[in-house]
């Protein structure tokens, strides 16, 4: 505990509470794109009414909602009528799993997932049917052969595979699994919540969930696309809008769509810029002693980097970085309310303690990344010093 003045002793450090904070925890909750804010205010003024009402105000709101649906559909390679707004990404996954598997009750009850799907999806699968997990390798990539073999076994109601893992960045073989699923007549649900707005999205899906809060749009609204050929069965109480009982917020949906259009406009440039920064971070971090840089080095999201430090308390490291002005995420058990480590890191067989996860925003600068790389080795060393692990 001999780190009396880390804020002054650390190169690049920033005092907490200043506006100079560097926020590197943008996965699933990024700052709003400026155009999303404008769109939201416009839609509050013009689209506050209930879009299901028949008067002029209602019709105006309905037009904004239709426009939002068309804009999202164009990006996803879907038809407008295939795109539904939901109360959020978790709600999208819950509803997709429940209603797609309910429609295939006669075919079977098995719901095949990779081991590294989001907890919301895994939990929904356990409720809706007989959840069956396909393992991943050390890089976090699902064994496509094993998944395809499982799809061919009679009794599969649904197969779910994320486009990319938001915790470790690894991109999954969605195309190969979709081929096998199609051949077997089993619908494929793709969780693209960590990838839409950051990389091009494949059109090899039957249901696809995307997360506005991840691409610079608002939280409190989600996107679920369901191909017209896919059968679904309503599972909750009857409602005019089964994907969002009671209807969605038009301003939130409109802001989400405008944000998506805005980030798609320069996505390729942003992808290249952030990929370079992430490669720099991964190279710099790998020079710190006793670290595992996690996830696929090549087939990965451009903006996510994850690493685990041996003999480091994840909670202490997140706190130490926060004191130095840097907000980061962690999959370590001590940083979770459940005290369970990240099921993603566990499934990969990588170190779960001492974990740090960063997701670069479109606004994250090279200078901010350099400052993070300058501060991190000292922060790790101070946390290790507290645990007296020298020489182990």
């Amino acid at each position, binding site marked *: 505990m001999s780190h009396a003045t880390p804020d002054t002793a650390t190169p690049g450090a920033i005092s907490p509470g200043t506006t100079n904070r560097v926020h590197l925890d943008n996965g699933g909750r990024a700052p709003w794109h400026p155009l999303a804010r404008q769109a939201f205010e416009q839609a509050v003024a013009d689209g506050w009414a209930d879009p299901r009402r028949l008067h002029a105000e209602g019709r105006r709101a309905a037009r904004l909602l239709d426009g939002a649906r068309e804009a999202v559909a164009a990006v996803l390679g879907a038809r407008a009528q295939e795109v539904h707004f939901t109360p959020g990404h978790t709600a999208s996954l819950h509803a997709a799993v429940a209603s797609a598997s309910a429609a295939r009750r006669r075919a079977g009850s098995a719901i095949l997932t990779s081991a590294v799907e989001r907890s919301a999806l895994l939990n929904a699968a356990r409720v809706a049917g007989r959840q069956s997990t396909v393992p991943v390798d050390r890089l976090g990539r699902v064994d496509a052969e094993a998944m395809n073999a499982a799809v061919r076994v009679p009794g599969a109601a649904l197969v779910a595979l994320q486009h990319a893992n938001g915790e470790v960045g690894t991109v999954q073989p969605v195309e190969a699994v979709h081929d096998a699923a199609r051949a077997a007549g089993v619908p494929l649900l793709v969780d693209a919540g960590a990838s839409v707005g950051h990389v091009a999205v494949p059109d090899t899906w039957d249901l696809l969930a995307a997360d506005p809060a991840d691409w610079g749009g608002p939280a409190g609204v989600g996107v679920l696309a369901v191909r017209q050929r896919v059968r679904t069965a309503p599972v909750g109480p009857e409602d005019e809008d089964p994907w969002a009982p009671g209807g969605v917020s038009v301003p939130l949906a409109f802001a989400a769509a405008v944000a998506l259009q805005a980030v798609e406009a320069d996505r390729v440039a942003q992808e290249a810029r952030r990929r370079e920064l992430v490669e720099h971070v991964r190279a710099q971090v790998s020079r710190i002693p006793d670290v595992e840089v996690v996830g696929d080095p090549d087939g990965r999201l451009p903006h996510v980097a994850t690493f685990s430090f*041996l003999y480091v308390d994840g909670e202490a490291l997140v706190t130490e970085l926060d004191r130095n002005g840097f907000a980061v995420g962690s999959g370590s058990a001590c940083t979770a309310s459940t005290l369970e*480590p990240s099921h993603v890191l566990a499934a990969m067989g990588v170190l779960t303690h001492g974990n740090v996860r960063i997701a670069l925003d479109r606004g994250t600068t090279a200078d901010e990344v350099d400052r993070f790389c300058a501060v991190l080795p000292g922060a790790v060393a101070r946390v290790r010093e507290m645990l007296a692990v020298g020489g182990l």
Partner: protein
Amino acid sequence: MTCVSETVVDARGLRCPLPVIRLAAAAKGLPAGTELTVLSTDPAARFDVPAWCRMRGHEHVATVEHAAEPGDEAGGWAVTVRLH
């Protein structure tokens, strides 16, 4: 358990990363081939001890889960490693 106490690291009740640190401290200076078993109630240790083995070139031999017992005995894991 007393007869093998020298090769057992009792890290029950300790949270990550302390079980792995206790194991590493116990392993220090022991000859290759020694088997050590770490007892832990922390759910991270059953993943992190095999990862430590991989990073340090040791061998993960086995992981045995102990269910929680009625009374006060909490559930946990016994992870055995062979030092190289």
